[in-house]
């Protein structure tokens, strides 16, 4: 076997003038090193190709095909150009789901972030049992989304829900609020649940970011006469900027693809009032219509949007590190 050749290295150095000499010595070593590198790379490449690249390419291909129920078994689906995308943009329900997605993502992110930041700031100052309280606040994050959705569905039930019972008992409302049963309030109902789920994630990451800010800076600011509010504005916020970027981008990508919560609570109803692009895309493919091509087109649009934000985020991150 080649590896028993002990003098390969010596050959390479000494036999340089000889015509074929250097290659004889270096090539096996080089080949070995390339093989080694390739060997370590292969699992990642294969994994990515099979589980990310192939489905992605197949999905893009699918979005340009007229792939209905008749194509499932035969695999025969004619290409129809931009037909699926055109169909999607002619569909009033899809347009509604786009607006719904914007509202859902924007309000989820805003509320999750503000509440998360408030809690993180609150827990920066330790007090008795603060550690326990902080870990209790993580519970929503640990709960399976289906469980959270089901619990909220019953809490927001119009006739029997605890939320309405409390509102009625405290005379805040005179009639039960039809939370998930009216197109005007259903989005609010779904948002309440999703915000509750997302707050711990924001809190944990922002809390970590706050811990990394040296206490000395606050002392210096205090000496310069900065009050709590000014300290927050001029010390906390600028130093927390990279962490805020991470929280918001991850939150955005995460919220864009929220499915379970909405599906369990309303199935996109009442009358499509809570359909987002994610749930409607699923509905198109698997909800009985079997419009797999159109559903794939909806999925592709989501990927493009999420991808755009990911690139935007990576670029801002690079600018950040480059500037230092």
């Amino acid at each position, binding site marked *: 076997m080649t590896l028993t050749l*002990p003098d390969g290295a010596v050959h390479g150095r000494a036999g340089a003038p000889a015509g074929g000499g250097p290659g004889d010595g270096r090539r096996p070593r080089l080949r070995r090193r390339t093989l080694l590198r390739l060997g370590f790379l292969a699992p990642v490449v294969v994994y990515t190709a099979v589980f990310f690249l192939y489905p992605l390419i197949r999905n893009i291909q699918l979005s340009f095909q007229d792939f209905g129920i008749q194509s499932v078994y035969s695999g025969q689906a004619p290409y129809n150009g931009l037909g699926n995308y055109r169909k999607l943009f002619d569909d009033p329900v899809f347009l509604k789901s786009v607006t719904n997605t914007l509202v859902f993502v924007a309000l989820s992110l805003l509320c999750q972030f503000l509440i998360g930041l408030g809690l993180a700031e609150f827990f920066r100052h330790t007090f008795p049992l603060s550690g326990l309280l902080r870990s209790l606040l993580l519970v929503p994050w640990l709960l399976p989304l289906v469980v959270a959705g089901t619990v909220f569905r019953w809490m927001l039930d119009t006739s029997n829900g605890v939320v309405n019972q409390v509102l009625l008992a405290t005379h805040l409302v005179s009639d039960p609020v039809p939370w998930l049963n009216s197109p005007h309030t259903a989005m609010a109902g779904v948002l309440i649940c999703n915000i509750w789920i997302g707050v711990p994630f924001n809190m944990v990451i922002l809390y970590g970011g706050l811990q990394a800010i040296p206490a000395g800076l606050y002392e210096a600011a205090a000496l310069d006469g900065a009050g709590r509010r000014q300290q927050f504005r001029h010390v906390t916020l600028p130093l927390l900027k990279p962490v805020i970027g991470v929280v918001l981008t991850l939150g955005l990508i995460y919220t864009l693809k929220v499915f379970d919560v909405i599906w369990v609570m309303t199935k996109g109803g009442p009358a499509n009032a809570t359909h987002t692009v994610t749930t409607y895309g699923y509905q198109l493919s698997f909800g009985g219509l079997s419009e797999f091509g159109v559903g794939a087109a909806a999925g592709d649009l989501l990927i493009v949007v999420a991808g755009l934000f990911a690139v935007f985020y990576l670029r801002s991150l690079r600018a950040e590190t480059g500037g230092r």
Partner: protein
Amino acid sequence: MSGTASRGVRPRPPRTATLALTSAAAALSLLLTACSSGSTTAAGSDGGELTLTEMDYYNTGTTMTALPQLLNSCGKQAGVTVKRQIVPDLRTKLIQLASSHAVPDLVLLDNPDLQQLAATGALADLGAAGLSTDGLYPNVVEAGRYQGKQYGVAPGVNALALYYNKKLLTQAGVEPPTTWDELKTAAKKLTDGDKRRGLGFAVPATEEGSFQFESFFLSAGADLTKLDSDQAVSALELLDGLVTSGSAPKDVLTWTQANVEEQFANGSLAMMVNGPWQLPQLKKAGMTEYGIVPMPTPTAGGTPSGALGGEVWAAGNNGAKSRKAAEVIKCMTSAKNSLTWSELTTYVPSSRQAAAKLAAGDPDMQPFVDGIAGAQGRTAKLGAKYPAYSQALWTAVQSALSGQKSPRAALGDAQRQATR
């Protein structure tokens, strides 16, 4: 030490290289076996007993244990072993399996999904495999047909009826309603503010919502191919009036049929629209003071109609195994097993004779047995197009009952959406 000496000849990199290579190879082969395992199991065991795969979604109560027993005994008769798998989201799973040509040999699926699956070509023609449907209700036979071929046979079927709380009706001096007007007055009288509603039904944004609404829609004489007919509008106006007046809770838009049963059992609803499969749950909840009447009709003396409910047995298009699967289905849908299965699921047997026998012994089942004859297969006229109509229909019901659109406008939009 020998270690330092051997390090000079660099034995390490090659060893790690082989390690890396083997790990890469292992990852690859793992992937390949994972992808191909579906097709390798499809081949029958050589010479030995044939194994058929089966899928259904019965995951609760006695049916979960009884179904494998029935399958075992029927498998034995056909000389095969049946391997059962419970799949909650069966329709999606079957479509996925159809696309990779790995459909199970036997499936027990919801009847409105049958035609779409048959349209893919993934199912076997049971008629060609020698299955007879003599003695079954004609509408039940029709629900298993697609383009003139028999792809599915139901062991038992169901339809909806009106349950009422005897005690509450006696207290209020109300007779069980038979017409829509009586239903409206009764529901109003039985409503007690937010504490109790007169009537409950389930119209969530799923097939379940269409199924429940169809018992009003079809009783009105409307046709599923025309969602915005006057009859259809009158049916939706009825439900809209019940919800707007507070006789039925707004929650009907999110409740499932199981939720409605819970509310009826705890006395929050005086009447409910539900199927016979809820009977064991009601008894389990300790609710005994209930009566059941056929669905009310628009005018006195009308014939109630509704959508035919229940699951059908179908066989995957898997060559020689399909013939064995057809034999198993033949046994599962025989008069005797059909009756056993129907008793377990509190369904109505698909054989007219067995149904009559069941009704004679169980007065609770009488209204449901009566309902079957007038029930319509959801896919009878629309075929594989039914899901598109159904989605349009449940959306219309939700739009109207949530106050977004008038019943007429909602159904007009539904018809346009379905035929788009």
